[in-house]
C-alpha cells in the first residue's frame, strides 16, 4: 500500500467545513437590526458573535446638547417598547441630583403607567418569542392586548408609542375622568386572557421542548455578566430593584418577585435547568400577573387620593419647578426596574442647564455581552430562542 493511500485512510472520512452565516441586520427574528456573525458546523453553532451599532443614534451624546427637560423625549426612543419606564428612570436620576420631591399623586400615576407599560412590553416579548418558535398567532394576540394599553395611554397623554408623559418632578397630565375605571376594566380583562395564553402557549409541549435546557445561564454567571431583570431572575437570583432598592412608592405595594425554578419537580419548569430560556420566559409571564396585582392596588390608592381636597399637596401631579432647571454639580447612578431589567442613568452634572454626561445602562446591552458564551454549541433554531428569551430590543443596545 502506498503512502498516499495510507494517509488518505488516516484522514477522517467526512470532511466538514465551518460556514459563516451573517444573520441580520435584516432578519425576521433578530428583533430589529441586530447582526450576528454565526459560525456554524452544519446546524451546530460554533460561535454567534453579536455585531451591534446599526441603530446607534448617539442619544447619549445628544443628551449633552439639550437641557434636562428636553432630553425626556429621547428617553422614549431609548426603549420604545416601554417608554414610560424609560422616562421614569431618567426622571429619577435628575430628581435625585436636583433634590426634587415628587407629589404623591404623580408617583401613583408614574407607577401606574410604568406597570401598564411593563405589561405591554412583556406582551411583545412573549408573543415575539412564540413567533420565533414558529407560532405566529400568540404574537398577534399579544399585540391585541397591547392595543388596549395603547388606548389607555392615549387617553392620558395622547400618544400611542412615544409618550413623553413623565416630566421631571411629576407627570404631564392628570388622569382624565373615567381613566381609572378603564384601567380596572383592563385588569379584569387581562387576567383571564393571560390564563388562556398560558393554556395555549406556556403549557404547549413543543414550546417547552424548544426552550427547556436551551441557553442556560447559571446564577454566578448571570451576576458576573451583568444580566438584570427577568433574565437575572430567570437564573434564580432574587433581585428586583423595585423590591430590594425601592424607589417611588414601590415599598408600599405588595407583590412577589418571581424567580426561575428550573429542575424543581413542583415548579413551573420541571424538565428544565435553572436559568434556561423557559425560565426566563416563565418569569416574564408571572411578572405580568404581579403587575396586574400592583395595578389593582394603585387603582384603589388613586381612588383614595381623589377623595382628598383639590388643593391638597398630595393631589398635585407636578412639583413646582423653575422654568430654567439648573441641576447642582454632582454625579449619581440611579436605576429603576424596567421590563428588560434595570435601566441605570449615570448623570454627571456640572451645574449648568445641560448634563455633562449621561450614560444609559440597559439590560439588553449586557445581555448581548454574554450572548456568545450562552449560544455556543446550540443549534441555529436555538439561537433564535435565546435572542427571544433575552428579550433584546435594539435601540436599548445601541442607544
Amino acid at each position, binding site marked *: 500500500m502506498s503512502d498516499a493511500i495510507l494517509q488518505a485512510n488516516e484522514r477522517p472520512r467526512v470532511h466538514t467545513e465551518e460556514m459563516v452565516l451573517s444573520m441580520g441586520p435584516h432578519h425576521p427574528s433578530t428583533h430589529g437590526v441586530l447582526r450576528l456573525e454565526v459560525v456554524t458546523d452544519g446546524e451546530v453553532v460554533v460561535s454567534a458573535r453579536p455585531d451591534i451599532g446599526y441603530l446607534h443614534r448617539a442619544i447619549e451624546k445628544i443628551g449633552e446638547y439639550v437641557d434636562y427637560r428636553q432630553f425626556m423625549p429621547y428617553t422614549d426612543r431609548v426603549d420604545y417598547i416601554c417608554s414610560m419606564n424609560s422616562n421614569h428612570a431618567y426622571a429619577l436620576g435628575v430628581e435625585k*441630583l436636583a433634590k426634587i420631591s415628587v407629589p404623591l399623586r404623580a408617583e401613583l400615576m408614574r407607577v401606574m403607567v410604568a406597570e401598564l407599560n411593563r405589561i405591554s412590553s412583556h406582551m411583545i416579548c412573549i408573543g415575539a418569542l412564540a413567533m420565533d418558535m414558529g407560532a405566529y398567532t400568540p404574537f398577534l394576540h399579544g399585540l391585541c392586548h397591547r392595543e388596549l394599553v395603547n388606548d389607555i395611554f392615549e387617553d392620558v397623554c395622547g400618544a400611542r408609542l412615544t409618550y413623553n408623559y413623565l416630566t421631571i418632578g411629576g407627570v404631564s397630565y392628570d388622569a382624565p375622568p373615567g381613566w381609572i375605571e378603564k384601567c380596572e376594566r383592563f385588569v379584569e380583562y387581562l387576567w383571564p386572557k393571560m390564563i388562556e395564553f398560558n393554556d395555549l402557549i406556556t403549557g404547549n409541549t413543543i414550546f417547552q421542548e424548544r426552550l427547556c435546557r436551551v441557553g442556560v445561564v447559571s446564577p454566578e454567571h448571570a451576576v*458576573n455578566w*451583568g444580566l438584570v431583570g427577568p433574565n437575572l431572575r430567570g437564573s434564580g*437570583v432574587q*433581585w428586583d430593584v423595585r423590591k*430590594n432598592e425601592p424607589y417611588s412608592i414601590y415599598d408600599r405595594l405588595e407583590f412577589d418577585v418571581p424567580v426561575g425554578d428550573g429542575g424543581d419537580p413542583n415548579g413551573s419548569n420541571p424538565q428544565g435547568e435553572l436559568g434556561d430560556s423557559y425560565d426566563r420566559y416563565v418569569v416574564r409571564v408571572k411578572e405580568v400577573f404581579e403587575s396586574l396585582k400592583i395595578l389593582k392596588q394603585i387603582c384603589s390608592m388613586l381612588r383614595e387620593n381623589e377623595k382628598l381636597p383639590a388643593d391638597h399637596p398630595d393631589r398635585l401631579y407636578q412639583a413646582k419647578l423653575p422654568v430654567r432647571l439648573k441641576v447642582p454639580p454632582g454625579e449619581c*447612578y440611579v436605576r429603576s426596574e424596567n421590563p428588560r431589567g434595570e435601566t441605570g442613568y449615570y448623570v454627571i*452634572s456640572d451645574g449648568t442647564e445641560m448634563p455633562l454626561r449621561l*450614560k444609559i445602562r440597559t439590560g439588553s446591552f449586557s445581555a448581548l455581552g454574554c450572548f456568545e458564551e450562552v449560544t455556543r454549541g446550540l443549534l441555529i433554531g436555538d439561537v433564535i430562542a435565546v435572542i427571544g428569551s433575552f428579550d433584546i430590543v435594539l435601540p436599548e443596545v*445601541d442607544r
Partner: protein
Amino acid sequence: MDFNAIVEHLKKRWPGIEAPAVANGDPFAIVPAVDAFEVLKHLKETPELGFDSLMSLVGADNGHELWVIYPLHSLKHLHKFTVKVVLGREKPQVTSVVSLWGMADFFEREAYDLYGIDFKGHPDLRRIMNPPDWEGWPGRKDFEIPPDYHGIPTLRNDQFFADAVETGNKAVAEKEKEAIAKAQEIFKQEQAAAKASGGEGIQA
C-alpha cells in the same frame, strides 16, 4: 460597610486614593490609573467587600480629561461604591476588568469606541457602535462631525429645513388655532350636556 469605611480600608494599601467631598449625588473615590485594576480586584475578591456586580462602566469627557467610572454594587452585602479613574487626553490607558466582571467586555468596547480609551488586556478591543472605518472619537467634547461618510452627507441641509419651517409655520399655526377653537367648542358643548344630564365630568 459604608462609603467612608471602604475608602479607609483601601487607603491602607493604596494611599494615593482620594475621596473628594461631594455635596450632591453619589460619593466616589478617585483611583490612580496604574492601581485601578488592583483596587477593583481587591474590591471584588475581598470577602467583606464582595462587590460581585458591576452596575455600569462609564466613560466620560469633561473637556479637559477623560474619566472611567465604575459604579459597583454588592448583592451579598448590599452596599455600593463608585471608583473613578482620571486619564489624560493623550493615550488614555487603563487595565481592562473583563477578567473580573464579564459584563465589562461590551462596556469597555463602548468606552473605547466613543472616547478612545485603551483598555489594556481586553480580549477584543474593536469599535462596537460605529463602523470599523469610522474616524475620531465621537463621545469626546472636541469631536466634529465629518461632512460625509462614504459619500453620504452626515449633516443636514440647513437651508432646506429653514425653508420648510418657515413655509410650514403659518399653516401649522392656523391649523392649530382652528383645531383648538373647535376642540374648545366641543368641550363646552359636552360640559353643558353633562351638566344637563346631572353627571359630573364626562364619561370616557
